[in-house]
């Protein structure tokens, strides 16, 4: 349970990457993603991963960044295997160097893709995410749902743990039996959990009522995202990077090994 909660936790940081406007960071991650998709070459993918690694170092999130990438390993291996099988059959020969190379490139690109967004999520607070949604003119109802989901996930995880402990102390065995018995074992845990969630949602609705939720059609916000000069500078750099990536790909194809 602790590891599950850890994934949700945000570690506040003060690096330049943390302090960038989340919209700029979102654009940065998207630019890296698009570039990755544009090029098949392993060299370019390596370059992109290098850029991401530099960002991770600057924002001091290297350890957790590697962990996320590491966590995606099964997926990456599956992509490699699938690619390799399909290519082997279509080329009609196994162990062809091109088949191997292309499968490797596909799996490698997946790492770059995942890594680009993990930088974004590692350096952006859920609160900033909420503000970004507001800036994108998403109705507050949805932003509120998103923020509450983040707010209450750990609360529910804790509750789940309490219920599991309570049922175990009453003799419930969760780790015994076949897969079907295991699923059945979780019923005594899910039922109280759902009942508790319903009761909690009622109390939350009551508290929202006394806190005037939805009282004014035009809701105001205490904090708002504002672009500073460093945000504009970063934005210009990213645009330049993405622009040249697109230009080189379509209008001036380079010979890349």
């Amino acid at each position, binding site marked *: 349970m602790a590891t599950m909660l850890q994934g949700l936790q945000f570690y506040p940081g003060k690096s330049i990457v943390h302090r960038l406007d989340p919209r700029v960071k979102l654009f940065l991650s998207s630019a890296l993603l698009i570039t990755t998709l544009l090029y098949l070459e392993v060299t370019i993918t390596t370059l992109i991963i290098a850029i991401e690694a530099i960002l991770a170092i600057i924002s001091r999130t290297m350890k957790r960044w590697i962990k996320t990438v590491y966590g995606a390993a099964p997926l990456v291996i599956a992509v490699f295997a699938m690619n390799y099988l399909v290519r082997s059959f279509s080329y009609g020969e196994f162990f062809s160097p091109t088949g191997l190379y292309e499968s490797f490139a596909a799996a490698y690109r997946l790492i770059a893709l995942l890594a680009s967004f993990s930088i974004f999520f590692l350096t952006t607070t859920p609160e900033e995410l909420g503000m970004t949604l507001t800036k994108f003119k998403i109705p507050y109802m949805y932003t509120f749902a998103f*923020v509450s989901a983040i707010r209450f996930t750990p609360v529910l995880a804790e509750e789940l743990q309490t219920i599991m402990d309570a049922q175990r102390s009453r003799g419930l065995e969760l780790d015994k039996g076949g897969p079907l018995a295991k699923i059945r074992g979780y019923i005594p845990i899910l039922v109280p959990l759902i009942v508790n969630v319903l009761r909690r949602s009622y109390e939350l609705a009551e508290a929202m*009522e006394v*806190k005037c939720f*939805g*009282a004014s059609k035009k809701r*105001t916000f*205490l904090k708002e995202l504002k672009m500073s000069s460093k945000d504009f500078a970063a934005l210009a750099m990213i645009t330049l990077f993405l622009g040249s990536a697109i230009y080189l790909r379509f209008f001036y194809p380079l010979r890349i090994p």
Partner: protein
Amino acid sequence: MCGVDRRKTRDARGENKTLKLIEVKDLSFRYSGSDSYALKNVNLSISEGEFVVLAGKSGCGKTTLLRCLNGLIPHFYEGDFSGTVKIDGMETSKNPPHILAQTAGMVFQNPDNQLFALTVEADIAFPLENLGLPRDVIRERVEWALRLLNISELRDRSPFELSGGQKQKVAIASVIAMKPKILLLDEPTSSLDPLSAKNLIDSIVELNKKERLTIIISEHRLELLLPHADRLIIMDEGEIIYNGDPRKILEKDLLIYGVSMPKVSEVARYVNAVNHSIFKEIPLTVEEFVQALRRYLDDKDRGG
């Protein structure tokens, strides 16, 4: 500019000095789906600045009464509602909860279920944002509420990092930021350890003393509250069975109503059963107990 502000309603009504802040007349309520009445013919009036303690067994109607005072009943909870409740001249059944909430703020039992945002600051701003107040007003009120509850240093913390007592203080701050005249608290210390409970109650007492906020608090921990209370209301089965000076009723045994009195009061009551002349009035604190005893002994010395 200020979306929904209570001042509009107040101006329209005009000030009337003879009004009590809270007036409850012949109030009865039965939750839909329930056979029995949760409140039976309750009459009550409370003036501005009073500190009222509401006590009684669980299920005696304390929570229901509090819900009636800020309009959650009849707006949020359905059922048979009869009688009138007026707060600051507004009839609760005729005004929407978000208008009433700006006069009578409510803090609930479970602190986790009343914090919505991801930082303390954002949580205090939450109701003000909902009301559509301008940003500088929100900023100013958040600062004021943080200072008032002495939690300025928690500003950027997330609710997961707070203790139960701190969470409850944040919940109070977020309600206070709406600048209500009345603060309703429904067993706010029930999930707190004794020290945090005392700490929280001290803050509530300070709000009453410094800001002249009218407080109505339902509680089981009477020994911490009664020394500050202007009035004790005891409820049983939906009815008010006592409404007045805390000391008078403490001469009786209240345990049958689910009220545990302060230990010193209990001892004094036992002593009085033997010798009626020691405690002229039931003490609520250890200091009062010692004073009364000393006075008795001095008198005895002089007399004998």
